């Protein structure tokens, strides 16, 4: 198994690592049993994600996909951020080994979870906008 140069770059120098104090939305996906947890913090101004940070427990691909996902949504309108697919994250990283595809799924879900939390805090039901975020990707976990 070999990672692309882009994956290694985002693993070695991850962008937007950390937390946001008083974040407008916080999303956490994955679980420790599977070996991956992603936590994403967003700051929202005028429906735009003005800042985003992440913390990840996981393998090289989990860290790299978190990093890339934050780069791809920073400065974007919430609607556009919600359109980010795991495929787009993978493509931006020049691909992932097949066994690591679930990491990109987690990154997509982490964004959605953070946006859901943002709407919930505002008293808006997130489900019609964001959809349901599955607990754990079927077939990737063995709980």
């Amino acid at each position, binding site marked *: 198994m070999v990672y692309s140069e882009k994956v290694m770059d985002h*693993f070695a120098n991850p962008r937007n690592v950390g937390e946001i104090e008083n974040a407008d939305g916080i999303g*956490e996906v994955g679980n420790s049993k599977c070996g991956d947890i992603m936590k994403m913090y967003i700051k929202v101004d005028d429906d735009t994600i003005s800042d985003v940070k992440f913390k990840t427990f996981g393998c090289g691909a989990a860290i790299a996909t978190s990093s890339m996902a934050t780069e791809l949504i920073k400065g974007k309108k919430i609607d556009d951020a919600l359109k980010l697919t795991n495929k787009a994250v993978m493509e931006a990283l020049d691909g992932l080994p097949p066994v690591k595809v679930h990491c990109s799924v987690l990154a997509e879900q982490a964004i959605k979870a953070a946006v859901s939390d943002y709407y919930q805090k505002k008293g808006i039901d997130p489900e019609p906008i964001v959809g349901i975020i599955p607990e754990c990707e079927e077939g990737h976990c063995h709980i």
Partner: protein
Amino acid sequence: MRQIYADNSATTKLSPVVLEKMMPYLTEVYGNPSSLYRIGGRAKEAVEAARENIARNLGAKRPSEIYFTSGGSESDNWALKGAAHALRSKGKNHIITSKFEHHAILHTCEALEKEGFEVTYLDVYENGIVHPEDVESAIKDTTAIVSIMYANNEIGTIQPIPEIGEICRRHKVLFHTDAVQAAGYVKINVEEQNIDLLSMTAHKIHGPKGCGLLYVRQGVKLENLIEGGAQERGRRAGTENVAGIVGLDAALQLAVDTMDERCAKLSVLRDRLIDELLKIERSRINGDRVKRLPNNVNMCFEGIEGESLLLKLDLNGVSASSGSACTSGSLDPSHVLLSIGLPHEIAHGSTRMTFSEDTTEEDIDYIAKIVPEIVSYLRGMSPLWEKIKLEERLGK
């Protein structure tokens, strides 16, 4: 940057001494050992001299008990399938092994279960050691073979092989041991230790890849592995890997000659690194600290994942191995770490470093310096670590 190879349980660097012994058989002595002319005869002599010397180094009674193979996995497959198939007609359909064997054994057992064999997987307890009394109580009338590895490939724990050998002999049950990791680090004597079948390979002891052996005690019935020629007494046909066989012999001889001094030096380095790394909070050593290979360090660091630690080590010039199965195409953590009772989330954060004679004190100091830095960096970005610390504060 300092470059440190710390994955000697995966494979080792070919020793120059071994290469020199092999060279003639890669160049001028290219004859087929089965041919009658001189360069064939010279190749045959080299193979038989290696067989004789290896038999002596393993404490075997006869050179004819040594069968050359392509390596450890082949030997393990042959030992189990060969013995199981040969004994089935006698009503023997039960196999005893342990939960943390190499997959060459475990997957072979699974294949045999599909053929209708019954397999007992023994516990290895918290310290990663099989209890001989468990072997004895698992033996029944239908038991064909017991297979317990000499030393574990991930956590390096050394098993009570002579005790298990004695039990199997007393109960007239075949005993196989996978000595791939132990050879060269532990004194092996198949006669004294009552071993009937033993697998080993050259490339773990500074020999070439692609050559190993199966010791088969005279009188042990084993189904043939490869039909098609008279090589290896007709049981494993195919033109011999002459240079590989010469290399296997040279590597084992070198390992036996240097064993005491090398193991003493390695134990000191190993213990020093373990002591240093245990200073990291919420770290643990996996497997018995004393009954372990002198070159094996296997540790878990809570709150981080093994593959990212491994990649960070690589970026810092250290080649190590992650016990987590992320690298092997499966997302489950190591079956070995689960077998010693670690929960999934802790088993995910493991790393294995295995050293060789080339490892220096400076290497150990460098690793002892960078690992805490990497662990602390990865914990700094880990939501799991955040949770662990929060629970600590809440006094859980």
